[in-house]
């Protein structure tokens, strides 16, 4: 594989220093350019002496109209600049739902229920067992109460009550943490892919908290696991248009109505991996929030590749001829996600290698940007163990970088769009989040979409006393074996 030679090459020490120097050069290009120029001007001015400066001044033939026009011009340019500058969007705070311990589902209980319900289909039970053994989940993940019954009762009522339980608890916590009054919410976005009742979940939230009648509410459904970042993107766009506003985003997945009772293997997969969870996020563009906000949104990239067949298969879950499940991540993934979120130096290198391949020699190895230089923390959607493994390999990340993702998968399972927030909470709970750190959140949505968000930490975050990890963070990280023998 051509890639294997790249790490060897890059890891040689001399090259690393060269690379660091190059990165510094490009990142601070403008300032590196301006400083010498200003220094030269200053030296010139000092050399010239006051009379000579006055002479130069007089010779410029200033005239009132000319002066006024140029001042006006300068003011015009600067106001255009300030107005068209995008508003900074802050993430003030967020809360993740912690399910009650009575909803815990150990592997043995899951398998037993499966066996009791699918009594006449032992092969399906076998399949689920194999998935669970290799899933990377732990014994503390939670399913909603309706799925605990024998047989499960995935009714509409139960789904609604699960939605109320997960959403309202997370929002209550968020209100308490941020001292936000419900009446002050300007924008509400709820995303839940698989449960879309009438009236919508956002209407349910508005009804419960008696939000304002002129609130801008949105309910996104059917958009998969990457819907969380789609909601953030939507909030950002809205916050550009509305000054001095705040937005609440609720990301969740309601498990109850989707418990599959049939026999189709591909459809039994969600039963094994999806678990209960939700997150409520407060974003705003108030200037006053810049002191208390936790993060600032730097970039957000949404890529939808549904039109391209190759990308359709880019993240695709398949069963090979032995019946082993694998996630197929093709190399094109890098082409999709990479370039836009990298720092300028990496982008330049990537561009050069791209040009080189196109013009000179297609056989040149593709340049894999070193993402580790760009970010301090990574939050990879905990879609499954295979996804995290593949991404770790392709992005050449260390174990510590993907620790948040793996541990979230272990403790909470695949909570769909809210998993990114559990991972962020893990990093904060470990006390690793410092002011100025950059976080890259990557969410994949069923082979169609890859969404990325880059946040910059606004203030060093103290280890939180509450939150979903508060009672178990000391036990983590844990070693997760390849296969758990059931």
């Amino acid at each position, binding site marked *: 594989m051509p890639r294997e030679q790249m790490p060897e090459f890059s890891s040689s020490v001399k090259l690393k220093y060269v690379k660091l120097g190059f990165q510094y050069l490009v990142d601070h290009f403008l300032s590196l350019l301006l400083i010498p120029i200003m220094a030269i001007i200053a030296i010139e001015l000092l050399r010239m002496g006051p009379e000579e400066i006055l002479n130069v001044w007089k010779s410029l033939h200033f005239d009132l109209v000319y002066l006024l026009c140029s001042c006006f011009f300068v003011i015009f340019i600067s106001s255009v600049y300030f107005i068209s500058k995008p508003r900074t969007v802050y993430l003030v705070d967020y809360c993740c739902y912690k399910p009650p311990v009575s909803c815990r*589902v*150990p*592997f043995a*209980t899951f398998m*037993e229920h499966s*066996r009791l319900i699918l009594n006449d289909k032992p092969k399906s039970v076998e399949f689920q067992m194999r998935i669970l053994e290799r899933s990377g989940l732990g014994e503390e993940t939670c399913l909603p109460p309706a799925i*605990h*019954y024998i047989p499960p009762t995935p009714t509409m009522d139960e789904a609604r009550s699960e939605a109320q339980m997960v959403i309202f608890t997370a929002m209550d916590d968020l209100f308490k943490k941020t001292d936000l009054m419900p009446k002050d919410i300007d924008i509400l976005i709820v995303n839940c892919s698989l449960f879309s009742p009438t009236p919508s979940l956002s209407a349910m939230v508005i009804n419960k908290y008696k939000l304002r009648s002129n609130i801008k509410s949105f309910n996104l459904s059917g958009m998969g696991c990457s819907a969380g970042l789609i909601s953030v993107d939507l909030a950002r766009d809205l916050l550009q248009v509305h000054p001095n506003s705040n937005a609440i985003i609720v990301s969740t997945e309601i498990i109850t109505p989707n418990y599959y009772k049939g026999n189709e293997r591909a459809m039994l997969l969600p039963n094994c991996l999806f678990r209960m969870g939700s997150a409520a996020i407060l974003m705003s563009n108030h200037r006053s929030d810049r002191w208390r906000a936790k993060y600032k949104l730097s970039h957000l990239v949404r890529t939808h590749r549904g039109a391209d067949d190759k990308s359709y298969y880019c993240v695709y879950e398949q069963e090979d001829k032995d019946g082993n499940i694998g996630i197929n991540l093709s190399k094109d993934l890098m082409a999709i996600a990479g370039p836009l979120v990298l720092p300028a130096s990496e982008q330049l290198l990537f561009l050069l290698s791209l040009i080189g391949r196109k013009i000179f020699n297609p056989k040149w190895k593709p340049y894999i940007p070193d993402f580790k230089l760009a970010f301090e923390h990574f939050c990879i959607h905990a879609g499954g163990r295979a996804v995290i493994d593949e991404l770790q390999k392709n992005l050449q990340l260390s174990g510590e970088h993907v620790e948040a993702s793996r541990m979230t998968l272990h403790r909470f399972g695949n909570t769909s769009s809210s998993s990114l927030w559990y991972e962020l909470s893990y990093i904060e709970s470990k006390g690793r989040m410092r002011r100025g750190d950059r976080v890259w959140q990557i969410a994949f949505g069923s082979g169609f979409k890859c969404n990325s968000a880059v946040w910059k930490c606004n203030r060093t975050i103290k280890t939180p006393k509450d939150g979903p990890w508060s009672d178990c963070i000391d036990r983590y990280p844990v070693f997760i074996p390849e296969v758990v023998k059931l």
Partner: protein
Amino acid sequence: MLLKEKTIMEDRVRLICKRTVVSTKPVEQGRLYRFSVFDHVMEPNHIRLVYYYRTSKTREPGEITKKLRESLAYTLNCYPIVTGRLVKETDGTEENRWKVKSNDAGVRMVEARATGTVEEWRRSVNREEELKLVHWEDMYHLPYYWSTFYVQVTEFESGGLAIGLSCTHLLADPVCAMMFIRTWADLTLTRNMMTPPLFHSLPPRRFTSHKLSNNQLLSHYIRSCSLTAPPSNVTEDRMVTTTLLFPDPMVQAGENEQGISPFEILSGLLCVCVSRAKGKRNELTDMSLCLDVRKLLRLDQSYFGNCMVYHKVHYSKPVTTKDRLLLLSYVVKEIHNVTKGLDYDTVMDLVEWLSSNNNNPISNGSDLVCINLENMANSRPMMFEEDLMLSHVSCYVEGPVAGGGQAIVLPSQLSEGPMSRVVMVTLPQREMVKVLEDELLQSFSPVLLMEYTKLLNQ
């Protein structure tokens, strides 16, 4: 005695749902727990308990059930054996015997609602209906998916609560099953576990193996463990159960000897009455006593596992007297000799014999079995919530160990006096009719708490 016709009543108990309750903390995976010899010998039987609580406060339906379910999850943290599953594993030295693999699977819990109040229910039910308050499932084809414990919580619509617990006798005897409920109640009420269970093996083999020559306990087991088929007369007649409350058996019997307990008097009384009901003129019926030997073996009350032995009563003299009170007094003395005669060495002889020789479960044939649970009352009441008063406890033991008739002596929850006892008597219907009419029994002024219903065609 009133003979009720069996009326076809509507099902007063309505099942709401069934689920599995797991502990709140994950268990240490893969641990295997072995059973003691007392456990193995009780394998084919199972226990069912019903606890009735009356209340003065009205509650939202489902509220108390939810609270109990959550506190049960916390209680199960201390009972990894209860949440595990049975496996048969050969591990070299041991033959193919049952073990518990602690895999964190949990216990089954059934939630139900019943019409009326607890008092109304108790006044009008018989055994079959009472058992509707305790869910039980026989072992599945695949024992690894079979829960060994079942809990049912039934809320009475007009007030009151019934908690049913059933379990296989392989894991527990009535004493530790009751202790389980006590621990659960304490945790629910005070958030504190006052008497957590102890899991360990029985005392080890003694260094000097002095076999007592006259070990009647051992001889009983040697005989009973080789009984394979139940005797023929047990299955002919239908077994019925009544519950009687004896307000003060000591006074009635006129016993003022030191050390005689109400259990001994009541067992003797039933022995005498059943013998007459069976038509035995100069003979007394065979009787076995089931006694808790935790204290004898110097084990704590909260030792979890089987620790009750069956001892046949030996009548040293033939029966000559016609005076029934004298007869009663004689029988009580014989029973007392049995209970006094049990000591550490006697029981350890049995334990050692069972470890080396025996693979069969015990059967009590057609004996009358008297189970002593009278010491299960405690000065501290067993409450789940402040205003839930325990009003009654029922206990059933089913399987070959139940013999040809059973008398379970329980403490009384009503404030009749410290010596009052509740006795659940199970006998073939023909004998039950005669026993309930017996004057000697009537002279103890028993109160009928639960009747049996006579079938019309008998």
